[in-house]
């Protein structure tokens, strides 16, 4: 998992328009990866990256980043090298004060490492001031300016802020490491090529014993392994330099070889404090970046969708074919009667018993020479017979709540052939005092509108 694959994944997942079904099919094919989301994503990415037009964004960004890192890395290295040479420059008149070099290889690295540690602990804060102070941060800024010319795709690429912070932290450690290498190389080169007399000098009232104790503590990591890497009290006493003397101490001149012994301590201090500890921090940053990369890719919205689509079964329960549209009649049925006359030639009741029919006639104040039950269990032949009895004006009671089926439509059509006027009277339930609701009446209204028969009327 690299920064390049993180960036490329984003562009592939955006540009490769795979359907839900295709993604699910991939998930089923790689079912063994279901519990390992990162591997599943990377496996999908590997399978699909070829389908996206090259060069991929990740390559563009990381190669630009590499170039800038290389330049800055070289700058850091040479800066370290020349700083080292400068700090160790010895004219032969005055000994080299080890305190400058110690500050550069112990104090400065410890201080910057402390800041780096704070930055690592507060990495979640996107506006982390310590991160922004880092030279690597400004490297990223230069990068974004350089990438402006590389097209919209590159410019639109969004890097997770947490990941960006880790990138900055890791590269800062790398630059610091190269700077320290430069310092070490300067020390080694100077020691090899020159005969340097080291001393220590300070305005503060520090005696040799106190300074020895301090150095003894500083040399803790290596003093048991390399005892010669710890300056002795004798060396410290002899190499204490006071500028006001304007000349070297006689004892110093008498033991020139002893003064050079300081280089071992300086070299080990550089290796431990400036290089080893920095290397540890670099490795921590490296691990932090790896974790951040994993988190960043998994927290991408596209990755979440991809994982969900690969792992969740596609459940559909809707119809595949579109529904055939049905044209229903609009508007009101024109052939309506509002009141009934007292007498009709015949009264029919569709699936209404004779007993109920008589009750209905009484309740609406209607008389008829024939009250006939239609539909129900009546044989069809008999139904036909009934229709023959139809005269001029007939009433047909129907149960309003039952929708008008084609069976009743057939009956009404037949009836209308034998009568001059057929009035359909929808009646409600007993609970509703036989009154049809407006909604029920509307249903009959629409049905009769579709039927549009000259002789069929609706009682509203």
């Amino acid at each position, binding site marked *: 998992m690299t920064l390049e694959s993180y960036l490329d994944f984003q562009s592939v997942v955006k540009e490769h328009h795979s359907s839900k079904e295709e993604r699910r099919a991939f998930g089923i094919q790689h079912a063994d990866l279901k519990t390992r989301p990162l591997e599943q994503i990377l496996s999908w990415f590997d399978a699909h990256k070829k389908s996206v037009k090259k060069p991929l964004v990740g390559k563009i960004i990381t190669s630009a980043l590499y170039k800038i890192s290389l330049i800055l890395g070289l700058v850091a290295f040479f800066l370290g090298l020349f700083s080292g040479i400068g700090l160790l420059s010895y004219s032969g008149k005055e000994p080299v004060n080890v305190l400058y070099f110690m500050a550069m290889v112990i104090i400065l690295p410890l201080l910057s490492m402390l800041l780096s540690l704070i930055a690592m602990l507060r990495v*979640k804060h996107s506006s982390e001031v310590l991160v922004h102070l880092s030279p690597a941060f400004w490297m990223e800024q230069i990068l974004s300016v350089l990438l402006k010319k590389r097209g919209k795709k590159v410019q639109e690429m969004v890097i997770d802020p947490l990941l960006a912070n880790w990138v900055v932290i890791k590269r800062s450690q790398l630059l610091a490491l190269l700077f320290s290498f430069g310092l070490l190389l300067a020390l080694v080169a100077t020691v090899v090529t020159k005969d340097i007399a080291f001393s220590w000098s300070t305005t503060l009232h520090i005696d040799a014993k106190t300074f020895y104790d301090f150095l003894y503590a500083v040399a803790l990591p290596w003093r048991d392994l390399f005892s010669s890497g710890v300056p002795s009290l004798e060396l410290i006493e002899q190499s204490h330099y006071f500028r006001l003397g304007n000349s070297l101490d006689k004892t110093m001149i008498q033991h020139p070889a002893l003064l050079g012994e300081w280089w071992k301590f300086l070299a080990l201090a550089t290796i431990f404090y400036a290089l080893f500890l920095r290397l540890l921090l670099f490795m921590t940053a490296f691990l932090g970046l790896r974790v951040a990369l994993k988190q960043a890719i998994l927290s991408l919205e596209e990755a979440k969708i991809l994982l969900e689509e690969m792992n969740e079964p596609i459940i559909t329960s809707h119809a595949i074919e579109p529904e055939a549209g049905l044209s229903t009649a609009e508007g009101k049925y024109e052939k309506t009667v509002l009141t009934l006359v007292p007498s009709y030639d015949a009264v029919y009741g569709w699936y209404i018993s004779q007993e109920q029919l008589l009750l209905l006639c009484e309740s609406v104040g209607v008389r008829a020479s024939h009250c006939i039950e239609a539909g129900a269990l009546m044989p*069809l032949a008999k139904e036909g017979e009934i229709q023959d009895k139809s005269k001029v004006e007939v009433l047909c009671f129907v149960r309003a709540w039952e929708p008008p089926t084609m069976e009743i439509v057939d009956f009404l059509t037949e009836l209308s052939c034998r009568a001059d006027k057929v009035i359909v009277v929808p009646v409600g339930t007993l609970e509703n005092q036989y009154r049809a609701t407006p909604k029920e009446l509307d249903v009959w209204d629409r049905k009769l509108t579709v039927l549009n028969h000259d002789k069929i009327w609706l009682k509203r």
Partner: protein
Amino acid sequence: MMLSHPRFAVVGHPNKGKSSIVSALCLDDTVQISDTPGTTINTRSFPLRVDGKVLYELFDTPGFQRPTKVLAWLQQYRVSADKKHEVIQAFIDEHRHDAIFHDEIELLEPIMEGAGIVYVVDGSKPYSQEYEAEMEILRYTGQPSMALINPIDISDYTQEWKRALEQYFKIVRVFNPMTAHFEEHMALLESIAQLKQEWTAPMKHSIALFKAHQEHLFEQTATAIARLVHEALSSVERVPLRGKEASKAEKEELEQRYKNRLRALEMAAQKKVEHIWSHDHLQKEQQLLTFEGMDLFSQETASVFGLTRNELLVAAATSGASVGAGIDLLFVGHTLLLGAAIGAIGGAASAFLGFNELSEIKVLGQTLGRRSIEMGPMVNKNFPYILLGRALYHANTVIGYSHAMRSKVDMVMDSSFKSKWLLDEMKKSLEKFHTLFRAKEVVQGDVLEQYAALIQTILKRLTDA
């Protein structure tokens, strides 16, 4: 042609809610439902597919139009019970292209191809002998069958229907597709599974899948709501300045844009939730997220959705106290609980000061010669509760809303809803997340997941209630 998966034809008299039942069971809000008989003119298949594999299939069929005539045709042939299905097949073969029996052929065909029968009646209307012809025809098919009493209206004739139906069907259930919850859907599927022994296992598998799917939908909904609250709280709107100082018009423009952004976020989240629950065609009667007079919302709205000033003070104080208590713990109590006390005071003070404030308008420094004003992130302490309350109400309504419903859904809630979702023990946890979202920090995926899990718990409690 006999197929391996279970198939069920939903049949019955016209306008008895067959399509509503299919729509509810299939979570499909596109099925045409109307009170005009004959809306369904062709049989439609609704297969439950899991990764392309059909687990079972439901058929929405047209209603019986001429059952008496069909039965009369069938009864011409005096055959033994084991041959009756052949008579039905003969009827289909003879009338396949006969427009008069189009609907009967449409509904009988899937049954003769092996579909079980789900016969639907309206339990709110009286029983009538008219239905006996239909039931008799279905008996001719010899297929396993059950009856569903759908109480469309408020009148109750269920008992008389049960007495009649039990003579024809071995299983009779009452099911209202308009009000039935998920558990009732599953119970119905379990009843359907009893129709034939071979169907029990695949139906049980389908039920298990449905349940897992339902859990997943809850998870997706909670994530959508969690993201909404997070995005709304951390949202920042910026407007470039024309002059050196921000004019009143520029400030108003910024405020308007900021509010619109929050409204757009809410609308987008609602759409997403509706999509998750397959309610893409939902019509809503709803008020927009208002900010007038606020308190972000009118005092009235804040009291409906959000916390009152006192409730907010308590929540913020508790949250602050818990942070302070952590410090006390570090010092093994030597601080004499001063940390908790300071935390509580700090939390309460920030809540008090931030009750009415929406967000500060900040003038940003010069960047490449351009100045701008910025609004956000949201500082109002009550806002997340209002937004969360609205989102939960919306989601709860959508989850409980039947796919068979075609009317506009009323999204106007009352103050009782707040007491349903916001329990005292949750306020502290919620406040902790809201404080985190307000800070200009990168919120990690796991934090959002924890927040979503909390929302999911609330949502499940609401739907179970």
